[in-house]
């Protein structure tokens, strides 16, 4: 799924919410409102740079609510053009921060 992203998808984190449901013994749920990005060419790696490109969805279906447990970590996106980014999969954030 999503080609080279192997089932993971980048998203913009819009909000982090804690909801409390009075109907269910005040159960607290921790959710995140995110704006999902779409992989270009089904997440196929580019022949040019070997990276996956993602872009912002134009429609309103990009916004969704997910459990915060599904957030795996931060991704490093490099701006390619307006509303379109390369997913840096060559180097992890820690090494990037150490070197640059």
């Amino acid at each position, binding site marked *: 799924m999503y080609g080279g992203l192997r089932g993971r998808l980048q998203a913009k984190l819009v909000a982090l919410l804690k*909801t409390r449901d009075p109907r269910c013994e005040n159960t607290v749920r921790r959710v995140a409102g995110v704006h999902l990005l779409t992989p270009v060419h089904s997440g196929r790696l580019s022949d040019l740079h070997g990276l996956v490109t993602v872009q912002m969805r134009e429609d309103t279906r990009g916004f969704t*609510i997910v459990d915060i447990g599904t957030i795996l970590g931060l991704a*490093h996106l490099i*701006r390619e053009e307006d509303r379109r980014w390369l997913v840096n999969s060559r*180097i992890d954030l820690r090494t990037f*921060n150490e070197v640059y």
Partner: protein
Amino acid sequence: MREWVATSERRQIRDDDRDEEDELRMDMIHGESHFNFIKMHLLSDLCDDIHQFGNIPMYSTEIGELAHEMQIKEEWRQSNKNDAARQIVHSYSRKHALWMRLLNLQSLKNRGADHSPDVLKHLDKTTRKVSPPVICRRILKGRRGDVSNMVDFSRISGVSLEIINRELIRYSRHNLPIDHGLPEDHAPLRSLPIKLQTQLEVPVLTFQEANVYEIHYARSMGTLHFRNQGSRNH
């Protein structure tokens, strides 16, 4: 007069020899003093290498350093420093063979093989206790006080209330048990009490580590766009 000349000549010859030795020494020093060796060369290519081949932990020298400590230094300390190389090799080989034997016995024990009480007792003594994996929970931080329900959230996030409700219902249907699901009417969803947090700490496993985590700090962006800057851990 002849003696004086001879002394002068000897002194001249001695000075010439000394100068020649100094020059030779300086030539040797300059010949050996340079930074054109592999360690310095690798540093100059580090950034390009990361661009081309990926991150550097996979080329870590830590394993080699650890092996040097375990295989050489510890054995050296335990030797009597007399023909130490042979003792180091013998000692480490013996330890390695014993570790392998213990691992085999442990594996057989796990498969249900019968061992004598002595072996079992020894295995219990020597087997390392495996600590349970540390479960790192995601932590929410930084509460914003100006949001108490979905209407407030819609106002500050710029997302319409209709879309928020639709997505909440979809989330509830797909992720929550039926008897603990969120209400599907819009009115109770609007008044659902919420707290808006600004930061999430996500533990991420460090490369090639089983129990070591580094923390990524995810911050909610609201209506802001991505920054066109270098990466950070937040």
